[in-house]
């Protein structure tokens, strides 16, 4: 069987990797990034939020959203200088909309044991949302990691202050 020379090729690999990292850092690429540019379109634009009704946390009546999670979304949108476009659907419909890039964020009584975890991205569970004792997660499109990053940092700031 052919003899490999692990150290020689290893150094080369590491060097190549380091070069790529330095080059990308030089170009000012953001890490993590969104493959589909969700954060870009939300910032100074529109945040499309879907609500799965959960009393106290997220409700939707006559075009008006209310609840503690809705308040969180309002402050997040404010931070990104975004307008919110609200809608209300069943959980399943919200998940399908996230998959189809028709929605940026879904709110409701979701927890980290949600069965949708292989179809959508989830924030870390946050505790301390008024109106519930459960650790709550929000749903985002899969793999939009810059957007998720921004949202999780906002949630951290909300729950620690």
């Amino acid at each position, binding site marked *: 069987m052919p003899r490999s020379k692990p150290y020689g090729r290893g150094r080369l690999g590491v060097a190549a990797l380091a070069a790529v990292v330095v080059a990308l850092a030089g170009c000012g690429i953001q890490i993590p990034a969104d493959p589909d540019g969700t954060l870009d379109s939300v910032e100074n634009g529109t945040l499309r939020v879907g609500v799965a009704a959960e009393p106290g946390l997220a409700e939707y009546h006559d075009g008006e959203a209310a609840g503690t999670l809705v308040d969180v979304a309002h402050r997040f949108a404010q931070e990104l200088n975004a307008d919110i476009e609200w809608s209300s659907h069943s959980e399943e419909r919200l998940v399908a909309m996230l998959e189809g890039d028709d929605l940026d964020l879904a709110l409701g009584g979701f927890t980290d044991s949600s069965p949708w975890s292989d179809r959508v991205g989830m924030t870390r569970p946050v505790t301390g949302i008024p109106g519930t004792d459960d650790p709550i997660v929000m749903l985002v499109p899969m*793999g939009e990691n810059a957007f998720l990053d921004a949202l*999780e940092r906002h949630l951290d700031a909300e729950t620690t202050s």
Partner: protein
Amino acid sequence: MNLAGYCQGTHEHLPEEQRKAQRSAIRLQIVTVVYTVVTIVLVVLVMGSSQAMKTAWIEDMLSLLPQLAFFIALFFIRKPSSVRHPYGQHRAMGIGHLVAGVALLTVGASLVVQSSISLITAEHPTIGTVTLFGEAVWLGWLMIAVMAVTAVGPPILGRMKAKVAAKLHNKVLFADADMMKADWHTNIATILGVFGVGIGLWWLDATAAIVISVGIIADGLRNTKSALADLMDRRARTYDGEEPHPVTRSVLRVARDATWAQEAGVRVRDQGQVLHIELFVVPALNHVELEWFGPLIDAVRDIDWKIHDVVIVPTDPLPPYADTDKQVSRGRP
């Protein structure tokens, strides 16, 4: 006067050098197991939904199999031969080897399928942040850190194991060492995959996972092939399978030096860590005396510690499948 036409060593009679090698092999295996378990725990802590991380994690767990096979086999190969097991139980090493190889093959194949499905269905891996000392950190950085740190050990351990494997003529250990020496490929692939996700190239993750899975399949093939060859009683080869074992030639030389021997042929099979030898001798005269056997048996046994079992068969003619020097020197069969 020794009149026996056979002899069989006990396995505890390793020379000092091999005894030392065996001890350091056991030590190395224990260190490897501990290192691997720590790696497995670290990786699962930061795994997230990266396909490459998941694949690397499964590979880490699979890499425990050869170790496990080694320890189980060690228990069996020490048992002396009996009527029930007339060849001893050295084959345990080969069986463990085969099981490990087949496991690598099947799991590797299933991982290729999973990773390909991820790639084809364009599943974008979601990697969020974690809180570390009150600060939100992108989990991908932790994955890369874990992969970079855990890449260091296996090549070093692999090198040490390869040396010991050569001394012990142990193929399980050798295949294991070979795998460990190449283990950093997995880490580099995973780092590239996760980094790809970081810069928005979601497909790099699944691609890295496929590369890792193909590596697992290659490991499986190599192990299975080598284990099968021994279990099928292929002519004995060196521990790395590169060439016919030189012991064959030495045995023939010793046999031909016996004054009563006109021609000699040999059949050597590899029992895992030791060799079993059937020596066919064509006597110069038409009769043999039992007294001639003892000195020849002793001379053959003294050639190498690996020679564990010797049987002398006086015969004329030699069996056509017996190794004679001529065939050996004609090169690879």
